């Protein structure tokens, strides 16, 4: 899965979690840009992202994310690890 695919799929997750079919995100999007994205929603969002991609994040990784771009990085790297484990 390349970065664009990850971003597309993340968009679907965001729209689902924040219940906004018109929501748009870009790599620069931060929590301040989305209504309702507070610390508790952040946890819900992360858990949903984990579910959608079949990966798990660590607490440190989740807490340190600054924007969507970093989230995409995180997902891509976790998917790569998962892929590597599958091949191993």
């Amino acid at each position, binding site marked *: 899965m390349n970065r664009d695919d990850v971003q597309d799929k993340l968009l679907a997750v965001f729209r689902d979690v924040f219940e906004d079919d018109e929501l748009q995100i870009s790599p620069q999007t931060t929590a301040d840009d989305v209504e309702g994205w507070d610390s508790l929603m952040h946890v819900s969002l992360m858990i949903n992202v984990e579910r959608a991609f*079949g990966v798990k994040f660590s607490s440190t990784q989740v807490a340190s994310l600054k924007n969507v771009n970093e989230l995409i990085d995180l997902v891509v790297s976790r998917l790569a690890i998962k892929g590597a484990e599958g091949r191993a």
Partner: protein
Amino acid sequence: MNGTLHHVSIIVPDEDRVHELAGLFGLELGRRQYVEEYEADCIFTTGSCGVIEFIIATGGKLAKFNKGMGGLHHIAIAVPDLDQARRELSEKGIPLLETKPVDAGPIQINFVAPAYTRGVIVEYVQPVEAPSTRAASAPPDAEPTRAAATDGSDAGRLSEQDIFRKARSLRKVGSMQAAADLLRDALRRHWLSAEGIEKAGRHIAGYLDDSGTPSLEVLVLGQCTTNWVSTCLTAAAWGGAAALRASDGQYDNVIQELMAAASSGRRYDLVVLLPWHQRLLGAAPGLGQVRIDEEVAFWQQAWQIVTAQMSARLVQVGYDWVSPGPLGHHLAGKAEGPVQLVRQVNDRLRAALPPSAYFVDLEQASGIMGRERFYDARRYHWTKQPFSEAGAACLADHIWSGIRSTTTGPKKVLVLDLDNTLWGGVVGETGPLGVEVGDTAAGEAFRAFQLHVKELASRGCLLAVSSKNNPEDAREPFEKNPALALALGDFAAFEASWEPKSVAIQRMAKTLQLGLDSFVFFDDNPAEREHVRQMLPDVAVVEVPEEPAHYVRALEAGQWFEAVSITEEDRARTEQYRAEAQRRDAQNSFASMEDYLASLDMVGDVRDVDDADLARVVQLLGKTNQFNLTTRRHGLDTVRDMLAQPRSIGLTVRITDRFADYGLVAVLLGVEEVGASVPTLHVDTWLMSCRVIARTVEEFCLNSLVAAAAAKGYRRVIGHYVPTRKNALVADLYDRLGFQRVASDADAGTTYAMDISEPAPSKTFVARRA
């Protein structure tokens, strides 16, 4: 082109029509799909008759079909490749309507432009193998759907994604009520996962705020994070047809938040308190008992504020342990082990709890689900909420059932089917001795269910039968089969006929004089369950699993009969209802109403409200809806304060007649009207049990009140009727009793006055006990 007929589509105006037609032609309903583009709910039939698609179009182009009357709409032809079909058709000069195929779940669809088929609308469909790629696909470790459909009534069930999608599109067009109703239906049918429940809770909270719907105001405070639990609580209440707005306080700031709430002037109906064990189990060795004392004292301080300063009801959740910890299982249950400490503190809390408070036993709740599923360590470390999504939703259910039991009270009637519900087999075929009860494995399960249900009856729930059977066949097993644990005398109503069950149940409600919202329906047949759900939405329908061994658990899971206490009256209830039936038979044999009333030999016992009665009086204030003139839900302290004033009057009335002792049937509370020119008694509360209406007990109550008032020197009595959805019964009571109307307002109600300086008692057939 290799096409086959895929389905025929019929547009119908509403869902009732679908069930009507399906019932008429013996069609089985299967998959349901919401297609956003056409704003339509589509239900496909399954089974061997070929596929019919029923389209319920709520808006958009399809709703206008045939001038809104609906009818046969189109035929659909399945092709292996929609794009290829489109190319072939366009070569023939026939265009398809949509520029690209519309996603309708497992099929992609497109329509031939109708002009080219001379009025016959033809749809092309291409079955799709992969699941819809529109949204995030379900991952391997997703949480299982809560109460995964075991009851076979999946016919017409929308997927969770579709439910929220539909709710969103309804909201977009301003249909807020419809969106909220859709979620209510999904919630009460347990169609949502734990995550979906939390999401629904947020929806509903927003809806209640925006629409200003009168709601139960609940404050949730905890020593852990409470936000998910409170959101799920809103959802749980909504699924139970109640509007509940939950506010959270700051994490682990219980006393401060309570004090702030008490002095804020904001009115809360109820407070939920949620402990967590970080301090209890963090004690140094040897200090466990001290810590228990501290925790109990802490909660007692909290209760004080809730009951005395906020005048709110209380739901207290207990402590729980998540794992035995380093001591291991054997030692954790001893002395100062964590499990033992938790159990001790819970025992102390339970013993010290204010009388009408409800205690949610968290050990029981987490035990039934399983602690591994109920708790989530990661979530606890991230957010200080110890519960998993499933655990939070489950806890919310328990809290809701506690709130329900302290407001509307437990459900009062359990309506049971007979064949394959109370026994195995169909009695009309097997005969009374051939039904399975005991002996076989299935028989054991049915017998266990009968015993459970009998036990429910002995603690105050009424049992009723609604069976599609010949009346004689239905009764025979009770008369002839010794293996049955239940007898005919255990039932307050017994309906065996071939009429629709909704008709039978409505008749029962009328006979027992109880609202349908106090009924629970248990039937192994999914079609009957769906029928009752549709026709009688107030009745709680149990999700009955296929396996009889699981019946008891399925009934318990709904927590329909949770009660704060059981009284003697509760235990005698079935007997009372039987006596009532006898009384009604007697009534039919009298020439005139007056002769009949005289023959009843009614005796009324009037007493001042004393401490022994106080709890029962407050319970009645909370539960009585129909014969309740002002519906004031006073708490214990308010009533006590009211009656402490020397000029107040508080009366209870107990009635017995020739047939039965009805116990405490009426409560009248009056306070002095301040600043009146003439000594005036203001009737704050007058409620009465519906079991004794229209027998001149009303007149007896009034006479007793007037006598008590006159004895205290009052010369005038003021009464109010405050209209609610449920008390239309007493809208003209004061008029009938000879009061004068003083003022009337559509919302605030009517004020009445009666001059009592001259004695003029109303005629009554109730004799006062000396």
